[in-house]
């Protein structure tokens, strides 16, 4: 793997909340255009790992880089300088994030939700952003819901708006934190379909999920995490059908 190909590099990342070690030395490399799915039992550190990639969590040790740039720090010689909040916010505009609980802005319509960040964070003119926002809503199948407020939408529709909102910044990478876990079973597929479309269009994605079927179909690499470490990883055909590690086998036996 050459350096230009690497979109995300996570090296030796440690993170503790007090005495509780959540991440204990995580290494991960995601190529440009790759779809990585992270599986693992709850409390294994999946979400914390994802949140540290866009610096919503600050890591204690190790580093994260996206598109060749360190996240949250600047390297000067042999020292790392912590970035100011403004610079971190600017870095985050290159990294889309989709939350489990959607976190749409309830006082803004679907269209305003999608259009707000490009105007506020990237200072793009509203005039050019609105058509883009409309086309993104169309892409997630919600062109007719542009003027609806989030509470007037179903969970699946809200999550699709949230995906369009993340894409509006034209990010290099989109992170998904259990995007379907808060949804009714019959709404899961409409969100997964949008994500599959994204994956096919060559978007680099890291997805924390319990949807093994999605991993099998879409993922290039599946990671299995347990107890703050990546236990094993590999193509879905290998990892999901013939896991090497006992803990992976035990987990898959429970969820399949």
């Amino acid at each position, binding site marked *: 793997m050459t350096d230009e190909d690497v979109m995300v590099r996570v090296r030796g990342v440690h993170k503790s909340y007090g005495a509780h070690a959540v991440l204990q030395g995580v290494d991960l490399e995601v190529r440009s255009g790759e779809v990585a799915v992270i599986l693992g039992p709850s409390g294994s550190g999946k979400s914390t790992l994802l949140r540290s990639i866009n610096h919503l969590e600050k890591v204690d040790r190790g580093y994260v880089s996206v598109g060749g740039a360190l996240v949250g720090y600047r390297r000067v010689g042999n020292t790392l300088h912590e970035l100011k909040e403004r610079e971190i916010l600017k870095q985050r505009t290159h990294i889309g994030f989709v939350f489990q609980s959607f976190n749409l802005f309830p006082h803004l319509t679907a269209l305003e939700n999608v259009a*707000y*960040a490009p105007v*506020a964070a990237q200072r793009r003119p509203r005039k050019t952003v609105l058509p883009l926002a409309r086309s993104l809503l169309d892409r997630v199948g919600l062109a007719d819901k542009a003027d609806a407020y989030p509470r007037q939408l179903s969970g699946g529709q809200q999550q699709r708006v949230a995906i369009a909102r*993340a894409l509006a910044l034209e990010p290099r990478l989109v992170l998904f934190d259990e995007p379907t876990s808060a949804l009714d*079973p019959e709404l899961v*597929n409409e969100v997964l379909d949008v994500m599959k479309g994204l994956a096919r269009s060559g978007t680099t994605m890291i997805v924390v999920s319990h949807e093994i079927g999605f991993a099998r179909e879409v993922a290039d690499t599946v990671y299995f995490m347990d107890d703050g470490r990546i236990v094993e990883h590999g193509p879905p055909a290998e990892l999901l059908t013939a896991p090497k590690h006992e803990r992976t086998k035990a987990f898959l036996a429970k969820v399949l």
Partner: protein
Amino acid sequence: MTGIVFVPYGPGHESVGVRAATMSAPSKERSEPLSTEDAAADEIGALRVVPARHPWRWVATAVIAVLLAMAINALITNPAWDWPTVGDYLFNPSILEAVRLTVLLTVLGVGLGFVLGTVLALMRISRSPLLQAVSWAYIWVFRSVPLILQLLFWYNLAILYNEIRFGIPFGPTFFGIGTMELIPPVAAAALGLSLHQAAYSAEIVRSGFLSVDAGQLEAAAALGIPRAKQVWRIILPQAMRSIVPTAGNEAIGMVKGTSVVYIMALPELFYQVQVVYTRNGRVIALLLVATIWYLVLTTVLNIAQYYVERYYARGAARALPLTPLQRVRRTVAEFRAGSARRRAQREALSPGLSGGER
């Protein structure tokens, strides 16, 4: 139902509970299937609907109407209320001038109070320990000292410092102004009211911020939205929903609270009616004049609050409740439609067709 395909793979440990809970909702809908034949269902759908009757509401309405009539009778027929004098003074220029001052003090007190209060609340939730401490100390002092004492301090500022000088601290002075000129009594009253109000407003605004889900700030941060816009455009509009009712309370409290400035001999409404009734002896009539004006002012604020609340309820409710005006219109429209329907039904039945024939 295509989503079901994924369920066998689906729920891991974390989401089992969520799914179990949400699964029950759709199944409830399915538990009321259309077991009746379609034809029978059509027949039921075509039957006349008699709305539920509420006889006790009519009884309660009658009782309240009688009580209200008694109260109005007592107000009108008792000559001690002295309504003619009330009429004489209600629009008396000196009273109108006093109302103007009361409104001015309320607007300045609440307006400046909430502006400063918002600044204090932002300082309090900022990440700077110094700003937090300053805000905390301000709120501590200004909530602790009674308003009436603060007003007297401001009023007597000229005794404490008879000149206010601008210059380098402990160094030379560029120019100085007499305190009485810089802070006339009206300004002293507005200052006292707004500084006092700011301490309370700060806590109201802060409680509004706390009421907004933490996920909102996180989503804004993940989108790279600048910090100031996170607060002003994402958090504050949502916080307004819980700020406005309490702020309305404060504004209405301030209308009446301005009456404490009578100790500074400022001719606001309460002071002015006292001046008038000590002169002409019509105590009750002039207290009524003040009461009516306070009622008018608070009514205006109540209506304003209703519409401001409605504005910030955008997106918070699936559908906004109707305004009183819209409700009246709808009731009238429904009544008309209802009577038209009844007339149509009567006409349909009168030719002697039996109900079963269709």
